[in-house]
């Protein structure tokens, strides 16, 4: 685990590191013969909204999977708060301060909305197995604390009325919000969002944009998204992938007019 000099500091507090919060250096991933990522680098500053765009199959989800330890890169390194990350395993992310939403919704279908979010808050739990087995007071107190955290985030996202419902019974946009709540309740310093706007209507998407902008004083956000207008309005910087390679990097304005980007997307339309 990363030794954390700023343990206990508020999320988004950047006093511990002056450099980027998170850095990906020349990462390569191959699946058999297919090169999914080729020397991909990316740097996320604290409080920044960083977009990752590219046509279907460009390697965006794979990049997230590398950042989460689901895929071990064949080359390249990761740095979190200035320290190299080795042997990353997904279950360590929460403690490190990284949360991620999954493409789709990925909610626990047999758990109520509230329970889903409580699982997201699991890294804050204190009571152990024995106190749960014996239902000691400690365990009740712990549960109450988790429930309060979960409620607070559900309320923040306007979904508290669904607390006792199963996700399957809810409209898709509400499910997406619950998935976001589950990631936010962990109070990460960096949030990875994989296509959070897919399946949303114009209103929900606009609200999501405002919400993402509003997260910046608490955490950095890395956003994979196909909806260009959303990406262009909420991102501070954008990395463009095509066939596993970074073809452009810069502010939305720089990226918008980059011929390589237009090429990548035109190529997609022509295909």
């Amino acid at each position, binding site marked *: 685990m990363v030794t954390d000099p700023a343990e206990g500091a508020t999320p988004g507090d950047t006093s511990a590191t002056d450099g980027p919060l998170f850095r990906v250096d020349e990462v390569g991933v191959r699946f058999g013969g297919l090169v999914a990522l080729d020397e991909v680098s990316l740097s996320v500053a604290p409080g920044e909204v960083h977009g990752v765009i590219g046509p279907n199959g460009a390697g965006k989800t794979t990049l997230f999977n590398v950042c989460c330890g689901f895929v071990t890169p064949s080359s390249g390194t990761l740095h979190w708060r200035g320290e190299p990350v080795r042997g990353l395993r997904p279950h360590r992310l929460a403690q490190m301060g990284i949360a991620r939403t999954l493409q789709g919704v990925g909610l626990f279908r047999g758990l109520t909305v509230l329970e889903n979010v409580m*699982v997201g808050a699991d890294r804050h739990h204190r009571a152990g197995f024995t106190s*749960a087995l014996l239902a000691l007071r400690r365990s009740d107190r712990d*549960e109450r604390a988790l*429930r309060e955290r979960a409620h607070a985030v559900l309320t923040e996202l306007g979904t508290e009325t669904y607390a006792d419902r199963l996700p399957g019974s809810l409209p898709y946009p509400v499910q997406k919000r619950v998935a976001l709540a589950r990631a936010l309740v962990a109070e990460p310093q960096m949030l990875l969002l994989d296509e959070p706007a897919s399946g949303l209507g114009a209103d929900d998407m606009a609200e999501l944009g405002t919400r993402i902008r509003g997260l910046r004083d608490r955490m950095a956000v890395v956003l994979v998204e196909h909806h260009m207008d959303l990406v262009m309005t909420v991102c501070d910087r954008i990395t463009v992938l095509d066939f596993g390679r970074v073809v452009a990097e810069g502010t939305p304005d720089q990226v918008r007019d980059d011929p390589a980007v237009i090429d990548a997307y035109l190529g997609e339309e022509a295909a």
Partner: protein
Amino acid sequence: MAVPVRNSESDEAGRSVPPGRPRPLDVVRRWLPRSTFGRHALLVLVGAVAVVLVLETTSPFRNSQFATLSYYAIAAAGLTVLTGLNGQISLGHGALMAVGAYTTGLLLGSAGPPPLILVLVVAAAVTAVVGVVVGAAASRLHGPYLAGATLAFAIAVPGLAIYFDGVLGGEQGMQIDSPRAPAWFADAIYFLSANEMSGAKYLAYIGWATLLVVLLLLANLAAGRVGRVWRAVRDDEVAAELAGIRPGPVRVLAFTVSAACAGLAGAVLGIVVRLAAPSGFTIVLSLGLLTAVVVGGLGSLTGALLGAALLVFLPPAVTNLGTAAGLSGVAAAELAPLVYGVVLVLVVLLAPTGVVGGVRRMWQSIRNGAGRSGVGGNGRERS
């Protein structure tokens, strides 16, 4: 004996009861203790009173049926937690019961047998250790592979008893000396009911006391973080991992807890039947337990109890019906497994959430029909 497995809405502060008319359950809830332990302990106390009433007013034959019910229910409760809450199937629970029964036999057969409570604890602990090993192997497997691995275990264990026939008694099995009721207990029951303590009745008391403790502990686990994490891993491993949960150890823990229950069940079985023999722990036992938890409703402790009751009371009832209809004794006895199968198929087809799930849904539709439910009103179980 309703031991709720889910109680996401029923706790102290921060409870999320929707606005609107108070529901009948809320009125009841207000009178329940506020702590999880208090609530569950109250249910267990009510259960204990019921047990005394039932055992003191029924025949010795029924007493021994209830003793049988107790060990099926202990094992089924452990299995429903594993399969229902954590999504792991096990065909090896009969074999885990064998571990508990043989451990009990060895301990009670030793020169200076330890006190009964210690025997039960050791049987549970030994089986839990076996559970850690099997669970660790199983935690990497899913679906049919998991079923296959636990099946292999189920077949191997009775074989061990035959292989080590010097210690374990081989095919014949191992006689187990059942403990006798201590004087204070017999006196207490006499004081309460003016009934004498019989051997069979004492064994039923042991079984039910063990069952109530098991239900209390499992309900505690299921109601809180441990149960929630088990269900999360069951539903979506990747999402659980992103929340900082390690699916492997979580699975092993669930398997271990479940195995400890099976060990206790085996210990009670050994004491009640007075024998631990390979023929008592065949794959039929494991399948019976699975039937019980599926019919009762996966993940529900009440369902496990109902399912176990089915295992005990259905076969004689069916056999009686068969002989009444003019079948020979042998043919009538063969009806029972057939009826099991039919019941299992019917439940899976008509009420996949089992008896408890079906009742819960009916109760919900009645409630939603009568008083309109608030905005946050229960959409649970509707998926």
